[in-house]
C-alpha cells in the first residue's frame, strides 16, 4: 500500500465535505474491494474517508411497496434481514452468495454498487428490479446508474446514501461462481412485476446488462422453455482463460432458466 491519510467521517455532511476538499480521496466502507486494491498498489488515494460509522447510511425498511436499504448495510445484514427476506427473498439470497462469510461480514451494498465490478452480484438485482440509487445529491435510476466496467453515474463528491428497491411480485437470482474467485461468471436476476419481466445478467459481460429477448419471452410465458430457443448475443461478452464468450453466453442462459424454475417454484 502507498501512504494515505485515514479520516473517519461522523456524518454524511462531513463525508461529503471531506470528499469535496480532497480530490484524490476515496470512501472506505467495508473495504472488501478497496483494501485489496490498495494492497496491490493499484490505487493511490490521498485520503481514505471511513464512512462505516455514519448512522444515515444504515437501516433496512419497507414501506409502500418499496424496500429501502442504507448504503452502509453489510451483505450479512441483507442476507439475514427478516424484512428483506419477506419483501424480496431473492435479494437476501443474492447477498448470501457474495464472496465468503468473512467478506459478507464487512462488505456493503453501497460499496458494491459504487464499485460496479462487472462480476459483482448486487448490480443485477438493482437493474432487474429497477431500483433507485439515492445519493447525497440526487436520485439515479438503476437504468442510468451502471455505465459499464467499474463505471457509474456517480459524479465527483457524490456518494450513495441508500438504495430503494420497488418490491416485485416475484424475483429470483441464480449465479455461477468463478471457480477461483467466487465472483459471478454469470448471474441472472429475474424480476416480475405488473409492468412485466426484467432480466439482468451480471458477470458475463463488461458490465451488468438487461437481456431483453428473455424479458420478452418470459413476459409471455414464465417458464424455462420460454428461453430455450433464444440466446444471449455473445459478441460483446468477456472471454479469458477461464471461459470463452460462448460459454459465458451459455451460462447466462442456464442461470436464467434456473432462476425461472426457482421463481415459478419448480
Amino acid at each position: 500500500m502507498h501512504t494515505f491519510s485515514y479520516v473517519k467521517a461522523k456524518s454524511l455532511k462531513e463525508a461529503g465535505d471531506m470528499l469535496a476538499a480532497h480530490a484524490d480521496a476515496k470512501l472506505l466502507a467495508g473495504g472488501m474491494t478497496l483494501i485489496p486494491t490498495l494492497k496491490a498498489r493499484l490505487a493511490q488515494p490521498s485520503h481514505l474517508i471511513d464512512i462505516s460509522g455514519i448512522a444515515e447510511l444504515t437501516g433496512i425498511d419497507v414501506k409502500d411497496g418499496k424496500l429501502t436499504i442504507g448504503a452502509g448495510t453489510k451483505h450479512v445484514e441483507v442476507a439475514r434481514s427478516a424484512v428483506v427476506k419477506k419483501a424480496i427473498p431473492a435479494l437476501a439470497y443474492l447477498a448470501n452468495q457474495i464472496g465468503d462469510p468473512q467478506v459478507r461480514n464487512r462488505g456493503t451494498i453501497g460499496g458494491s454498487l459504487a464499485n460496479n465490478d462487472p462480476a459483482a452480484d448486487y448490480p443485477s438485482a438493482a437493474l432487474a428490479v429497477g431500483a433507485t440509487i439515492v445519493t447525497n445529491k440526487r436520485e439515479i435510476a438503476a437504468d442510468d446508474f451502471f455505465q459499464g466496467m467499474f463505471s457509474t453515474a456517480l459524479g465527483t463528491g457524490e456518494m450513495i446514501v441508500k438504495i430503494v428497491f420497488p418490491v416485485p411480485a416475484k424475483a429470483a437470482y441464480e449465479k455461477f461462481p468463478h471457480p477461483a474467485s467466487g465472483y459471478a461468471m454469470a448471474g441472472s436476476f429475474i424480476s416480475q412485476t405488473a409492468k412485466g419481466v426484467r432480466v439482468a445478467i451480471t458477470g458475463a459481460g463488461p458490465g451488468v446488462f438487461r437481456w431483453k429477448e428473455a424479458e420478452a419471452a418470459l413476459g409471455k410465458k414464465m417458464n424455462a422453455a420460454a428461453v430455450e430457443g433464444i440466446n444471449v448475443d455473445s459478441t460483446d461478452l468477456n472471454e479469458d482463460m477461464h471461459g470463452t464468450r460462448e460459454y459465458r453466453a451459455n451460462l447466462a442462459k442456464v442461470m436464467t432458466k434456473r432462476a425461472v424454475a426457482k421463481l415459478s417454484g419448480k
Partner: protein
Amino acid sequence: MAKVELKINGKPHSYEVEDRTLLVNLIRDSAQLTGTHVGCDTSQCGACTVHMNGVAVKSCTVLAVQASGADITTIEGMAKNGKLHPVQQAFTECHALQCGFCTPGMIMAVAGLLKDNPKPTDEEIYHGLEGNLCRCTGYINIVKAVKKSAELMGK
C-alpha cells in the same frame, strides 16, 4: 500515524501505527500474537481470520485504525482457563490439520459459522468455509471437525 486502542483477547492494547497498517500486522508485529497467519494478499485464503466484535473477518483486509475501539479475538484467545475451545478440540480429534498453517484461520471461521448456525448441514458447512483455503487435508477431516464441533458445543 494513527493511535489505535483496542482489546485483543480481553486485554487492552494501544499502539501508534501508520494509517496504512493492516489489522493483521498490528496483531502479529505490534501485539506479537503470531498465531494469526497471512497466506495471501488478495483476501482469499482466510488464514488471517480473527473475530472483530464477535464476527469473523479477514484481518488482512481491515486497517488497524478501522479496528480502533474494537474487541478482537485471535486464536490465542480461544482456549479458556487451560481448556481448549470445542472447535480446537474437534480439530485435533478429527485430525483436521496437518501443517497447521491455515488452522488458526479455519478455527476462527468455524467458530464464526457455528455462532450463526449451530447445526449446519454439509452444504452449509461448504458455504461457510468458502473463505478459507487448506492445502494439506483435502478438507474432508475439516468438515468432520465442523460437525464434531457442533456436537461438542451442543453438549
